[in-house]
């Protein structure tokens, strides 16, 4: 190929248009020709640089280039790397190819300088290196190795990490059989063999977690994955990763075990435990809470709020308390609350509510703990009852001791007095009277002792057998006993007891109580009118109240109420005495666990109310 002889202008034009930045230097390295692209690359478009040494160009640093240009002038082509900062402060890397320019006489007359911007190559190279390092680091850190299998050659290769995971030396040469043998015998090994086979034959990818035993006999958990490489519709290779997840697996197992412990703990602890999110929906509940609310499992409670299980009033109360804890960030501990359970029964509970904070100190949930204290409460009530019974008994005992000392002392004083009189007395008639009085005193003492004995008996037999008695029948019996007395007094008895009304009492006590009160009504009847006695009964919360109303004299209870059921000395020959009757009635009623009280109006009449279990 021969080119037409070129003029200098032609050469100049040619060089100017070269796409690759090119410059021609003379033997003194002065710029003779340069392509536009050169001038642009090296900021030489403004100003005159032709005829000047290249080292004087804006971007050039003498030391970097001159030595190599000199070698080039001696006939050795040079390549040199060159970096520079362009006007827009961008770093650029160039590779210069310096070629000697020969004249027709084979003498070197200059240098052809071609520049290639290799910045992006270098960048890629750096990035590649970085990526490689990164991959290596990652592989090290996450213990991910790789493997590759060539189907044609049946060659299996493992990366360094894969070998390390298998505890085999770096020069170890695996094959498919030995590789699969590392997996635990049985299911694990079969699974991996099947995956491998399906990968080869059907082109299926896989990822699976399995247990393996390393060459050193260590058990490890690994995730192995594989995928086929297909070329021209043919599976030519399988490649994949191999990751040691033993530590994660151990950690996970530990977490699972801890979770299990925690779950076992909260499910078996006899406390209701729940966690509510900030919308007050339950996000965790234990078995006790499920049982309390009557649901078979936690799923029935999760995502639900108190509105779903309590009536509106209770739900509002609970919500207000929850919100108070959340907003104030102040927990409440062991507060006594009454909550209805699944059957609607009100259960006394000790409730704690604790705001749960995340690591940033923000509240994200509410922990609730409830303790059923009904059995405690029941015991407390029993204890209280027992204390009441005991203190009541104690009071009775003191009262009784007082009565005994008072009454007995009174009789002894009388004996003493009468005996003294008797000794002093000279007159026989008087003496005789004193002896009569003494026998009277003896009889009084005997009677008092008998009465006291009755009271002791009643108090000693508080657990005596009680029966459900037909109240109307019992009243009829008492009326029959008093028949003659009632007729004599022209008394009228009105019985308004509904048939079948029962009362729980000791039969003998009930007889005595009714008789005594009826007799009392006769004794204290009003002189201006015949006695009318009305008997009523009503049920009141597990008790039967028997009311016996008369139209007698009545008594000012404000003044004498306290004395009505007291025990006093009796006038033996005087029917007109309350004496010990009502005292014994009260003792009997209380011995059966009941109460007795009276209402009265002077001149109108009295009503006695006896309250006993029905």
């Amino acid at each position, binding site marked *: 190929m021969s080119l037409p002889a070129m003029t200098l202008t032609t050469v100049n034009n040619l060089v100017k248009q070269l796409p690759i930045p090119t410059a021609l230097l003379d033997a003194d390295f002065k710029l003779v020709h340069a392509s536009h692209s050169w001038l642009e690359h090296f900021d030489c478009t403004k100003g005159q640089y032709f005829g000047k040494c290249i080292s004087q160009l804006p971007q050039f640093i003498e030391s970097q280039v001159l030595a190599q240009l000199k070698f080039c002038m001696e006939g050795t082509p040079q390549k040199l790397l060159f970096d520079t900062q362009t006007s827009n402060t961008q770093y650029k890397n160039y590779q210069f190819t310096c070629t000697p320019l020969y004249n027709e006489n084979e003498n070197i007359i200059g240098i052809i300088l071609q520049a290639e911007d290799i910045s992006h190559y270098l960048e890629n190279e750096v990035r590649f290196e970085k990526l490689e390092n990164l991959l290596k680091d990652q592989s090290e850190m996450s213990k991910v190795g790789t493997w590759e299998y060539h189907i044609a050659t049946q060659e299996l290769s493992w990366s360094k990490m894969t070998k390390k995971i298998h505890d085999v030396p770096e020069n170890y040469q695996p094959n498919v059989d030995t590789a699969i043998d590392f997996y635990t015998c049985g299911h694990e090994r079969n699974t991996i063999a099947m995956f491998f086979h399906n990968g080869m034959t059907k082109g299926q990818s896989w990822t699976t977690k399995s247990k393996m035993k390393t060459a050193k006999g260590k058990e490890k958990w690994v995730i192995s994955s594989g995928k086929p490489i297909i070329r021209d519709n043919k599976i030519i290779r399988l490649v994949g990763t191999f990751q040691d997840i033993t530590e994660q697996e151990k950690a996970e197992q530990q977490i699972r075990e801890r979770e299990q412990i925690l779950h076992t703990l909260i499910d078996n602890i006899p406390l209701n435990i729940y966690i509510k999110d900030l919308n007050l929906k339950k996000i965790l509940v234990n078995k006790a809470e499920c049982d309390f609310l009557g649901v078979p499992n936690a799923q029935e409670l999760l995502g639900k709020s108190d509105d779903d299980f309590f009536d509106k009033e209770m739900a509002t109360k609970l919500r207000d308390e929850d919100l108070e804890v959340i907003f104030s960030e102040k927990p409440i501990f062991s507060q006594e609350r009454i909550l209805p359970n699944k059957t609607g029964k009100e259960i006394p509970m000790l409730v704690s509510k604790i705001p749960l904070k995340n690591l940033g100190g923000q509240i994200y949930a509410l922990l609730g703990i409830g303790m059923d204290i009904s059995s405690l409460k029941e015991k407390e009530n029993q204890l209280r009852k027992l204390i009441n019974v005991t203190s009541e008994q104690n009071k009775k005992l003191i009262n009784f001791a*007082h009565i005994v*000392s*008072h009454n007995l*002392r*009174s009789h*002894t*004083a*009388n004996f*003493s*007095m*009468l005996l*003294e*009189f008797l000794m002093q007395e000279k007159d026989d008639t008087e003496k005789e009277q004193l002896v009569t*009085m003494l026998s*009277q*005193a003896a009889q*009084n003492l005997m009677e008092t002792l008998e009465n006291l004995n009755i009271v002791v008996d009643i108090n000693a037999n508080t657990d005596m057998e009680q029966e459900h008695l037909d109240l109307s029948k019992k009243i009829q019996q008492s009326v029959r006993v008093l028949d003659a007395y009632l007729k004599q007094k022209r008394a009228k008895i009105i019985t308004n007891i509904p048939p079948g009304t029962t009362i729980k009492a000791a039969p003998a006590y009930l007889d005595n109580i009714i008789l005594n009160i009826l007799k009392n009504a006769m004794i204290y009847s009003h002189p201006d009118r015949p006695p009318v006695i009305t008997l009523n009964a009503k049920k009141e919360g597990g008790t039967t109240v028997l009311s016996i109303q008369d139209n007698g004299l009545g*008594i000012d209870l404000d*003044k*004498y109420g306290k*004395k009505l059921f*007291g025990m*006093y*000395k009796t*006038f*033996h*020959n*005087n029917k*007109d*005495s*309350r*004496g010990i009757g009502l005292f014994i009635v009260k003792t009997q009623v209380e011995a059966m666990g009941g109460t007795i009280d009276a209402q009265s109006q002077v001149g109108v009449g009295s009503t006695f109310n006896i309250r006993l279990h029905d």
Partner: protein
Amino acid sequence: MININTIYIVDDDAITTFGIKKLIHKSIRCETVMEFENGEQAMRRIKENLSKGGPIPDLIFLDINMPIMDGWQFLDEFQKITFDKKIVINIITSSIDQADVDTWESYKKKIPHYLNYSIKPIFSIDFKELLAANMAN
């Protein structure tokens, strides 16, 4: 011999009442000795007599432990009635309870009559001293 117009015995114990009566008749001359089983009966009589211009007792023997209205309640009521006469009230009780002694002391201060306290058994009554003490008061 000492002469006393009216004496009330307020006691629910017949034997004590008998004893007091015996001692009265043995020691003094008294026109009217009246017996009451409890404070209420005695009180009713006093009020009746006051309205009718009947005799007010000069001396009252008063038991404490009685049904309906006891001795202390009687004193509460008695205190409310105003008349010029200073009366001797002799409490007679079988109680050896210090609480009763203390109550007597407190009534002694607030009652405008002479209040004496005797514990049974009673073998004798020194009427002279009783009346003298009332005069001195």
